[in-house]
């Protein structure tokens, strides 16, 4: 990421924290107040020490006055620090919430082409982890940085005011601590990278071994696997030892430099106290400043790296938020007078990538109530078909007309509400069984839900679930079998029953009995509706009004069963290899 880019990201960040600017300003004022108080106290302590010289030379009245000022400073410092943290928390957590919601809202508007081509884990980590590290790093980092700098400047100013010669000693030695820390950090960076690499390699091996443990054992490969593991383990041990040891030198080293500063201040301070240049109390203040002064330096050097990292995270989040959204629906969307389920496809052209044209000059006319079977080997591109029909993707050329209206001129909502979809890759929401069935019609009554479940042949197994219709379903279906999940998906569509259907017939993944139930449910649903079926069963294919034969994403033949068989083309071959023996 270059300089330019960082500024742009920063600008976008500022745009989003604008509403919170007053809180940030207040936080800075409070931080200044806190630093001032924490710096004033050592001075007061020094003054008090000067009032306690020797027996008979103790000014109790003065000490009491100073002590009451110390207490006041302590109280003010504590209150402003607490308020500052509260301000920061409010800003950080609200900005986090705001950006997450913005990202999530944008996710709903992103085209599927984006979602399909980006790993889910990556998107999730942008919405969750990156937003967090951005907020932590940038906002927390910023206040830490500010407090640190104020402390350094304040300490420096006060030291210079008391005795500039001693201040110079502190200023001279402190950078050594920074240099040492930086030196060690640079050395350890490579060592840590080595460690991370070894760790990554080991984790990969562990994942693979655990995932394939049964195979490892079936082939009596345990010893060889353990030997491989030990090789990496030894490597990891060596690199971890180096990385951990070298990095743990940092703290003792900076402590040593602090000791040097301390000795330096002690020497110069004591010498000038001897000649009366400063008082013993001044020396006390100096010594505690010497302690305070070096601490923020170490913090700040960490903060800079963190700030950069958090900008990078922010950049990743903005990349997601700024990814181009779908074309909006037309201002005044057209809609057919009545959805009857007539579909007309004219000269359709489509491809996922321009280099690889997929569908060209495809035309098809489906009358209301007709059945279209899509056949072809697995991976032939049936998803392409649903993608275009539901406008998950838009074609590059040609038109799809629904009851005479171009789907591009309709609102996506109206279009999608008119198509019912049951995919083989069954997906259920976390929620109860009833909530899942009512997904398309949240206002449905329990009686309607049960009626739909009955029609989908799902009522029987739902009743046997521990809490019936109120049984919660975990993320992506939990304990239900594949067939049961599919029955629920059918019930879900059954409840709203749109005029058009897109169905995905089961393959071998569900057993014969359930498959029969699914089939009966499909039949009930398709009665009188235009349906597109990804077909595996011979009976479905033969009863279809139109068969579309797909291969490698392209529609290569269309017609009725007998026509296609007579033609002796790809369908003929497919039919012979699958059904005739």
């Amino acid at each position, binding site marked *: 990421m270059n300089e330019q880019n960082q500024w742009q990201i920063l600008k976008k960040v500022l745009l989003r924290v604008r509403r919170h600017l007053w809180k940030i300003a207040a936080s800075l004022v409070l931080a200044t107040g806190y630093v001032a108080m*924490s710096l004033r106290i050592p001075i007061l302590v020094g003054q008090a020490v000067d009032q*306690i010289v*020797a027996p008979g030379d103790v000014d109790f009245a003065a*000490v009491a006055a100073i*002590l009451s000022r110390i*207490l006041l400073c302590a109280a003010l*410092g*504590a*209150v402003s620090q*607490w308020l500052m943290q509260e301000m920061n*928390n409010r800003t950080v*957590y609200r900005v*986090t*919430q705001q950006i*997450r*919601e913005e990202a999530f809202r944008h*996710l709903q508007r992103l085209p599927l082409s984006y979602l399909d081509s980006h790993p*889910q884990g990556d998107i999730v980590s942008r919405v*969750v982890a990156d937003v*967090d590290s951005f907020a932590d790093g940038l906002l927390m980092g910023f206040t830490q940085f500010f407090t640190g700098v104020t402390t350094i400047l304040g300490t420096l100013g006060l030291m210079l005011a008391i005795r500039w010669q001693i201040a110079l000693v502190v200023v001279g030695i402190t950078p050594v601590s920074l240099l040492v820390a930086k030196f060690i950090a640079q050395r350890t960076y490579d060592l840590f990278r080595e460690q991370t690499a070894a760790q990554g390699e*080991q984790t990969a*091996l562990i994942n693979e*071994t655990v*995932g394939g*443990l*049964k*195979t490892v054992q*079936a*082939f009596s490969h345990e010893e060889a696997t*353990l030997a491989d*593991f030990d090789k990496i*383990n*030894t490597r990891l*041990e060596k690199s971890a030892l180096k990385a*951990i*040891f070298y990095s743990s030198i940092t*703290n003792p080293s900076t*402590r*040593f430099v602090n000791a040097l500063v*301390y*000795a330096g201040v*002690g020497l110069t301070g*004591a*010498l000038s*106290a001897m000649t009366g240049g400063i008082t*013993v109390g001044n*020396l006390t203040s100096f010594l*505690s400043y010497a302690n305070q002064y070096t601490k923020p330096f170490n913090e700040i050097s960490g903060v800079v790296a963190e700030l950069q990292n958090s900008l990078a995270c922010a950049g990743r989040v903005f990349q997601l938020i700024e990814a181009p959204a779908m074309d909006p629906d037309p201002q005044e969307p057209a809609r057919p007078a009545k959805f009857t389920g007539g579909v007309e496809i004219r000269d359709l052209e489509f491809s996922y990538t321009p280099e690889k044209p997929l569908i060209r000059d495809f035309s098809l006319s489906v009358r209301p109530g007709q059945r279209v079977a899509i056949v072809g080997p697995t991976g032939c591109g049936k998803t392409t078909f649903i993608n275009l029909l539901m406008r998950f993707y838009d074609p590059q050329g040609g038109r799809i007309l629904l009851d005479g209206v171009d789907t591009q001129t309709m609102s*996506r909502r109206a279009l*999608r509400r008119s*198509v019912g*979809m049951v995919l083989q890759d069954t*997906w259920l*929401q976390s929620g109860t069984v009833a909530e899942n069935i009512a997904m398309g019609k*949240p206002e449905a009554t329990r009686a309607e839900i049960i009626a739909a479940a009955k029609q989908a042949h799902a009522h029987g197994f739902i009743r046997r679930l521990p809490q019936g219709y109120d049984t919660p379903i975990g993320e992506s279906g939990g304990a239900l079998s594949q067939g049961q999940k599919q029955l629920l998906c059918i019930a879900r569509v059954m409840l709203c029953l749109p005029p058009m259907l897109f169905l995905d017939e089961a393959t071998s993944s569900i057993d*014969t*009995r359930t498959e029969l139930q699914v089939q009966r449910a499909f039949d009930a649903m398709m009665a009188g509706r235009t349906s597109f079926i990804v077909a595996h069963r011979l009976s479905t294919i033969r009863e279809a009004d139109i068969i579309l034969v797909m291969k490698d994403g392209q529609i290569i033949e269309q017609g009725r069963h007998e026509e296609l068989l007579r033609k002796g083309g790809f369908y003929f071959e497919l039919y012979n*290899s699958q*059904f*005739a023996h």
Partner: protein
Amino acid sequence: MTKLLKYMKGYGRDCALGPLFKLLEAVFELLIPLVVAQIVDVGVAAGDRGFIVRMCLLMVLLGLVGLVCAITAQYFAARTAVGFAARVRHAVMAHILSLGYTEQDALGGATLVTRMTSDINQVQNGVNLTLRLLLRSPFVVFGAMIMAFTIDFQAALVFVVLIGALCLVVFGIMLVTMPMYRRVQVGLDGITAATRENLAGVRVLRAFCKEDDQIRTFSQRTEVLKERQLLAGRVSGLMNPLTFAILNLAVAALIQVGALRVEAGVLTQGLVVALYNYMSQILVELVKMANLIINMTKAAACGNRVQALLEVQALQTDGPDTQLPQGGVEFRNVTASYAGAAAPALEGISFLARPGQTIGVIGGTGSGKTTLVNLIPRFYDASSGQVLLDGRPVDSLNRQTLRREIGMVPQRSELFQGTIRENLLWGDGSATDEELWQALETAQASQVVRDKGGLDSPVSQGGANFSGGQRQRLTIARALVRKPRILILDDSASALDYATDARLRGAIQNLPEKPTVFVVSQRAASVRYADQILVLDEGKLVGQGSHGELLASCPVYREIYYSQFPREEAAHE
């Protein structure tokens, strides 16, 4: 956790030396305020320049010795922690490899990976920190107090109260906020789950126009999270201001006491300065100590989980008989249940397979097909009845010998990172290239290998650079390489098209070794030419015989067959 400590063996010296050197460093650190007191009371008061210089050099020397001690300690701590972790990892890995299928099922893969990686890392981190800080932080905190006592009893009482109050605040706030931060984490997990679910179900959600609902739910979750974060932040935000206030209150008290004691002639000005310096050392180390305790509890919890895994014992015992099996398999009234399952997965199964026969196993999902074949290589043991190989009970056989003679092609076709050759050699480490190619030829996979660029072309993790069908054929080849007496194909042709499946069956029929073959499938076409077909339904053997016999006598088989080959179609043949 305690049983893990045996892996510390050999590090006993390091374990003692690490903290000891840390202790020394702390001692030297504690001496510094006394030196400063000397400077003030002796050097400044008497105007002895040489004394001041000597004392300051002494401070540098103390710092230097402290540095050397600390670095030595860090080295011992790091070495112990890292060495310990490496040994534990080795032990856990060896243990995992020795677990039976039953134990693996009970534990689950995700758990095993977490134990091996993040849990052991936490333990390593905990050991390292403990060795480094266990003696240092408490020693500095209480050492400072003891030093105060050596200086003056009354002033030291201020320290006692201060340490008590600070402990109360620091530990109290940590204790109160820990469950709060756990709830924050739960909220964050909820947001992750919501995002993941939204992405996984994007097509369905958009098909049902649920976008607005999704946004609403998500907003509710972020709102809950924010409230939890603010609450936790507000309470934990009390820590710094409160300790700041308490510390300075103590400073004020100390000065007041100091003033009285100096007036009484008990203390000197320099000693008051020394006491003040001790006081500022306490806070930093106390916070470190609190963090250490949290880290130790976390590490101990992780250590306990690792230990619990090591204590899971494989139930199966190995048999002594190393005579090679010839391929005869017999089940006598076999019942098998999975741990924790209500109903047995297989019930009362009996059949006899002669060497060289092909046995088809068919049935719906969950009917017990895989369980049946898994009993042959003793991946699981029957709960009653007997599994016999050539007439000998399978549990009397040496497991290694037994498995060497069985070629297993599991349902999930897994390849491992490396080359194709390395993967195939799993079958038989001494196989020649010619033998490998023969196996590939039989498995209909030779073209796949040629297309990929030969035996030495790479296989990425889990075989991700191969399609499902390619992987299946390579795993079949891997099993064939060992020229097994018994070949088990567990639904391993499901991703192949019918024509390839048919060729594969033909090639296996013609293998010169004539192994006994078990073909598990949902496809009637895959089993119909078997010498004997076993029809399973909900764990029971409901049909046994040839295709023709079963079609005539077994309703379940008929149902399966006709659902795949419509009646009129079948009649054409």
